[in-house]
């Protein structure tokens, strides 16, 4: 645990805030103190475009008074400031109580005292800036040295997150998480026609330290491959629209899982609590245990426990211990993501620990855990899946994504699209997007790869809520095969 964080006065502030909340009649109160250390680095071609190191520190008090939520945050690190913040939170609850027709109650959770530190080898903030910049510029120089691309951008984001949580229920936890991401994105331009194409590395964000860059993903190797891949893509034929069998790599499939399963199985959405903004879900609670979501072998889990997962924690932001559970088993919808309020309201008994706030100054929402498609028991590999396709496309890497407000109609593009003819790869295609409805798509899945093809993907910036918040989340997937999916030609989509 970072010693700077441990020296901060969070216990003293928490005690003062919770005592005041109790005095003001709170039936529930929690105090959350967070410190986030961040660094963003951007290299444009061979120039360092920006490098900003930040440290955000804030705390908040959340109360239930007279059955209504109240929340206030502050950066005044004195007991007096914490007491005043508790008073403001109680004041919010009192002011808005007459808008509240449903008294807030929470599912029970045992009191916990614990510490959690995520797995990492090298604290990314212990690495000298010069070393980081040298790595990024070196990779970009290698890409440009190929003379096959015109521009290359390398963006890196590093986060170390510390959190203290205490509640009137007696829970007191201290946590630390580290996460990193880095993307290399090259652009090739046909200066005569003005046409251009891009190609991004297949590196995926991880709950790891600097070792992701120094010994994990091989960025120099990617720098060697990207120019040729991009040159081939630029010269590739534009896809003929129609129905194709798709073999999808986890570097693309994680995002489809995120949008069409992750958000669809949020219970607050299914109940309508996000209807005005993020939307609802086609997977409504009356469909629990009877909706045929996908193929009979489809197994999707939710967890906050997997090592290196971006949503992995020891305890959530309501003091619930991390768990793992099934969301889809045997292709049937069998579970939801829960916070304590929604868990009790819908009779689930206990929350599965999906409350999360972006920072100490924001209110916890029901947020996504790691949601992952499990691999098959037969250890099929890429060749096995491609071998069963006569006329198809192999999709690698994510790019554009969009899904409707009930998580049903979606459209995704990618980084690489490889033609499959008679069980073999036959060169790249371009201008490809696949469009489907969620249950049609997952029911068209006829095979998944084995554990050797399983990759943990994810994102730092899943958005939800008002005021808007982002959350990091991972999605594991094997390579998977889908039959007769609608493929568009994006170049032909422009109106005429």
């Amino acid at each position: 645990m970072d010693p700077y964080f441990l020296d901060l006065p969070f216990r003293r502030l928490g005690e003062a805030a919770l005592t005041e909340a109790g005095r003001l009649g709170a039936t529930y109160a929690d105090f959350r103190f967070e410190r986030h250390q961040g660094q963003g680095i951007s290299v444009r071609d061979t120039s360092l475009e920006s490098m900003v190191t930040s440290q955000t520190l804030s705390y908040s008090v959340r109360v239930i008074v007279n059955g209504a939520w109240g929340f206030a945050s502050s950066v005044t690190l004195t007991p007096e400031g914490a007491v005043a913040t508790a008073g403001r939170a109680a004041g919010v609850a009192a002011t808005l109580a007459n808008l509240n027709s449903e008294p807030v109650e929470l599912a029970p959770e045992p009191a916990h005292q614990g510490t959690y530190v995520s797995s990492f080898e090298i604290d990314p903030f212990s690495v000298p800036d010069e070393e980081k910049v040298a790595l990024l510029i070196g990779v970009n120089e290698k890409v440009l040295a190929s003379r096959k691309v015109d521009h290359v951008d390398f963006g890196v984001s590093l986060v170390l997150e510390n959190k203290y949580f205490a509640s009137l229920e007696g829970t007191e936890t201290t946590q630390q998480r580290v996460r990193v991401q880095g993307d290399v994105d090259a652009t090739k331009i046909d200066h005569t026609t003005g046409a251009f194409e891009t190609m991004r590395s297949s590196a995926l964000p991880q709950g790891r330290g600097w070792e992701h860059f120094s010994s994990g993903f091989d960025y120099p190797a990617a720098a060697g491959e990207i120019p040729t891949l991009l040159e081939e893509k630029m010269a590739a034929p534009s896809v003929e629209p129609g129905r194709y069998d798709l073999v999808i790599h986890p570097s693309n499939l994680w995002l489809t899982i995120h949008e069409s399963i992750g958000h669809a199985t949020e219970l607050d959405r299914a109940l309508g609590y996000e209807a005005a903004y993020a939307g609802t879900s086609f997977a409504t609670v009356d469909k629990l245990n009877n909706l045929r979501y996908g193929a009979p072998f489809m197994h999707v889990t939710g967890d906050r426990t997997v090592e290196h997962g971006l949503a992995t924690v020891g305890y959530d932001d309501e003091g619930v211990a991390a768990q793992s559970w099934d969301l889809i088993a045997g292709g049937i919808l069998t579970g939801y993501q829960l916070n304590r309020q929604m868990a009790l309201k819908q009779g689930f008994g206990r929350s599965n620990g999906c409350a999360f706030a972006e920072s100490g100054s924001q209110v916890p929402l029901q947020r996504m855990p790691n949601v992952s498609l499990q691999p098959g028991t037969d250890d099929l590999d890429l060749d096995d899946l491609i071998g069963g396709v006569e006329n198809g496309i192999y999709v690698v890497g994510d790019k554009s994504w969009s899904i409707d407000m009930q998580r049903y109609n979606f459209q995704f593009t990618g980084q690489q699209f490889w033609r499959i003819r008679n069980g073999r790869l036959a060169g790249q295609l371009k201008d490809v997007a696949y469009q489907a409805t969620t249950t049609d798509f997952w029911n068209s899945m006829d095979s998944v790869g084995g554990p050797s093809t399983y990759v943990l993907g994810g994102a730092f910036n899943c958005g939800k809520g008002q005021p808007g918040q982002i959350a990091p989340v991972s999605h594991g997937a094997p390579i998977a095969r889908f039959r007769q999916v609608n493929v568009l030609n994006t170049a032909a989509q422009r109106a005429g």
Partner: protein
Amino acid sequence: MRLQQTLERVLELSRADGCIAVGWFHSSANLRWALNTSTTNGVSESQELVVISVIDGRVGSVARSYFPEESLESVVRESEAACRGKPAAEDLMPLLEGDEIPGDFDRDPRETGIGVFGKLVPDLAAAFGRAVERGYLLFGYAEHVQSTVYLATSTGLRRRHSGAEGKFQVNAKTPDFKSSTWAGQVTTTFEDVDIPAMEERLRLRLEWSKNQIALPAGHYEVLLEPSCVADMTLEAYWSTAARDADEGRSVFSKPGGGNRLGEKLAPSGITLYSDPREPGFEVAPFSVATSSSSYSSVFDNGLTSGRTHWIDAGVLTGLITTRHWAKVSGAEPKPFIDNLIFPAEGPSLEEMISSTERALLVTCLWYIREVDPQTLLLTGLTRDGVFLVEDGEVVGAVNNFRFNMSPLDMLAQTLEIGRSESTLARELGDYFTFAKMPPLRVRDFHMSSVSESV
């Protein structure tokens, strides 16, 4: 220690060749409701200090949200240390100079609180009661933010801006969730939020929705409400970096090199500009940048901005240009400005409906993402109200669609321009508050597939 004093202390402590200090104070209040009851509500205050040191042309940037006086020296030293071992900044320019302290620089930040909703809360409670009586559900969100920024440089420049931003949006649904409508507005005070009037608009549209009409994907004439026009044009505005265009990697790049400045993109009735002093849409009249990109440069901190035309009478006349890129390209600097104005004095939406033979009336758009940067092809969904207009009247509600459309094609295919009004972009309003847009009639808007969602 006051924020202004903090900035002055930072500059005193600085040993760099140049130093920029920026301080923000944000105060916000929000309330949220769903299913005719309040959900998450709260108040928040936060502050941020960014210290940017420049040594031998190299830049070191450090940001803090907690910066007591005793910590300032370490923050400044960290910023200076961050310059070490780095290459010189490509966008290096002399810091802007100033010798006068603006009259408002000494003013303290403004704050807000839950009391800003004093009029709204009883009105909303009454609306919940009417919704229960009449059998529909209300969802929505109200947010008020008071932000103040102070900027000081070692070259004597001082700037301050304080502004309020408020958003109110309400969504009505039938209890079976099969019909849904939305209304939103931008406000700075919440005194002008007329909940009964918005309720009437929503109820009328729920009434229209009683006749449900299934239409297939295809190219349609559409009447886009101002919120839709805001979302689409903001996507275009955010793609107007001159450097990206000049380098050949933007929709505004010209085949063969250079950019499309001077090219006719749209009918002559279309003008888009930004102006920090536009009445009712006031935003900071100077640049604030904590990092550099093709859209901004830390060396442009404090650069004043004025009315800037991006499209004038259908012709592309402006691209966002940093001082550095202006020097490289021989253009004039044109900083990003936080409002977008599409001036138009055409007919009202109701008048446009009345003169329509057959078109889809689209309330708002959602989940808009770039598909192809070369054409700025966007995909997204219609949301909370697509209505069929025939022979001058709304005849029913239509299913939602996924669209694939470039905002430049939308502008080029515009047939009629309505009357501009302040509008809240349904999707991008979270990031960009102040937009004044008209409704548009557009031909051949590409609805790529049907969305069964409501």
